[in-house]
């Protein structure tokens, strides 16, 4: 079972099915309970990020040593940190930062990776070789390392984290899009459209792009989960969002020294990360099943 052949076959099946079957996909997604839970959670998190900060009673940034390291109580639902700030309030304010980094960094990776993949798969030959070698080089840096290297030279800030994680996300998009583009452009109807005199641009935008949307969406959803994990790791290492920004990884990094006696300072920011990442993974899994029920990884 060759990986490539397998992927091509899937893509062909997907392409034949076409993206006109959105209703079918929606129906399949609705039947998948775990995916639904993931989807609703993401929706809920977005709402919290948008309007949550309006409802919090404490200040996420103001230092108050009189309320330092208090355990969870009715006043401070998840306790307070070493600067006396309410952890629940900080988590709510941090939600928008987490989602902002997750969405935007994946968007950066998509905007660069998808055209690379299309050019590579559609034009082939030398262009394909060059683009795929670039992708190989990016993939030669294991996991989070490229992001660490980039952020270490660019400096620690939320925007630099987005750039670093975005670059890290490029190869994933480029590879998947190349594979599906390759499969789709070999289909007979693309030949037919070309024979009718359609320009490359027209073929790419009207015929190839709609056919590769579904793998891109699945890839993006799963990538957001990875991006959030990596971004929180960078902040934990002190390379990402800087204090006093209520970024969850940064909160963990600061809470670390106090967690032996006050475990709540490290417990809750971590749980927040797990919940959001889990939601995107659940939704991504469900989307993949809905788009292509044959793959069940």
């Amino acid at each position, binding site marked *: *079972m*060759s*990986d*490539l052949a397998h992927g091509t076959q899937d893509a062909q099946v997907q392409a034949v099915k076409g993206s006109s079957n959105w209703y079918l996909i929606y129906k399949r997604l609705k039947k998948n309970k775990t995916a639904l839970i993931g989807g609703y959670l993401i929706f809920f998190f977005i709402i919290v990020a948008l309007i949550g900060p309006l409802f919090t009673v404490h200040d996420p940034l103001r230092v108050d040593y009189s309320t330092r390291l208090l355990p969870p109580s009715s006043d401070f639902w998840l306790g307070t940190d070493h600067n006396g700030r309410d952890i629940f309030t900080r988590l709510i304010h941090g939600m928008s930062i987490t989602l902002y980094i997750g969405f935007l960094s994946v968007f950066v990776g998509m905007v660069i990776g998808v055209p690379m993949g299309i050019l590579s798969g559609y034009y082939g030959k030398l262009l394909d070789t060059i683009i795929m*070698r*670039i992708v*190989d*080089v990016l993939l*030669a*840096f*294991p*996991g*989070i*390392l490229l992001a*660490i*290297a*980039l952020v*270490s*030279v*660019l*400096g620690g800030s939320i925007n630099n984290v987005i750039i670093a994680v975005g670059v890290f996300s490029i190869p994933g998009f480029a590879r998947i899009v190349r594979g599906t583009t390759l499969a789709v452009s070999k289909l007979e109807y693309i030949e037919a459209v070309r024979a009718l005199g359609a320009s490359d641009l027209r073929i790419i935008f009207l015929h190839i792009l709609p056919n590769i949307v579904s793998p891109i969406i699945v890839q993006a959803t799963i990538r957001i*989960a990875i991006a959030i*994990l990596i971004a*929180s*790791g960078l902040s*934990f*290492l*002190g*390379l990402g969002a800087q204090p006093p920004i209520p970024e969850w*990884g940064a909160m*963990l990094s600061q809470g*670390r020294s106090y*967690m*032996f006696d006050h*475990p709540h300072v*490290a*417990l809750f*920011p*971590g749980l927040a*990360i*797990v919940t959001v*990442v*889990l939601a995107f*993974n*659940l939704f991504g*899994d469900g989307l993949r099943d809905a788009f292509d029920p044959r*793959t*069940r*990884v």
Partner: protein
Amino acid sequence: MLQFIVIRFIQTIPVILGVTLLVFSLIHLIPGDPAQIMAGEAAPEATVEAMRERLGLNDPLHVQYGRYMSSLLQGDLGQSVRTSRPVMDEIQPRIMITIRLAIYSMIVSIILGLVAGVVSAVRRYGVLDATLMLAALFGFSMPNFWLGLMLIKLVSIDLALLPPSGWGTWQQGILPIITLGTGGAAIIARMTRSSMLDVINQDYIRTARAKGLKERVVIYKHGLKNALIPVVTVVGIEMGMLLSGTVLVETVFAVNGMGRLAIDAIRARDFPVVQGIVLIFALIFVAVNLLVDISYRYLNKRIELN
């Protein structure tokens, strides 16, 4: 097979060249004057100029890259700005710690992942399957540094069973290895399950059952053997996650490996050391992928070379 190995080996050369180019460029991506930043914000112009001279930043870029490559081929990764020692000497005592941590974690990932995956596939749609897969989903949605912190709190502080930090004794190794291995175990478990389910539905498994073979023989001899092939590719990707994951896990458990050195060097703005570590990590990963490809090819001779 030999031909495949040779071709695959040649294919890695442009990748390695690209990696060196990117690592070399890192220092030039620094916003502002890299010499000023490494010498310190308040350093007088003379010191900055000396730093510039020492790093060869006054030469044209292609001359710098040429010099970088020729030193590299002689095993010279430059000089640490902080300690003035050769970067290679800084890294060398720490490489094996990081590689060991990664390999032990990989072994834990593979064992846990395979067992969980096979059990899930055999008991598919049962309670055990659901529980294991939910655990796997949690396993790879969890930041490993947070898992490490929680394990320290629970196992080292509250239960006082294992030391919270360091590296050397086997007791010190357990928590970092589990922390690093969990994410990989989760992914391998999911991959094994789906691959097993694919295999179990194949005709030859039905034939094996029809022959009257024991269920255990069918599952382990005929099923698992074939299901393992796609899992091998995940192991390669996993190794990348594990290698770079050491940066976080070594920081959490105060393990004196290459990952922790990287973070110390970044904090001290010691970019030659950062560059050296990034390069070594990438080279190890390229080598691992080469090995994975060769073993994948060996396991599945049907794959044709592109």
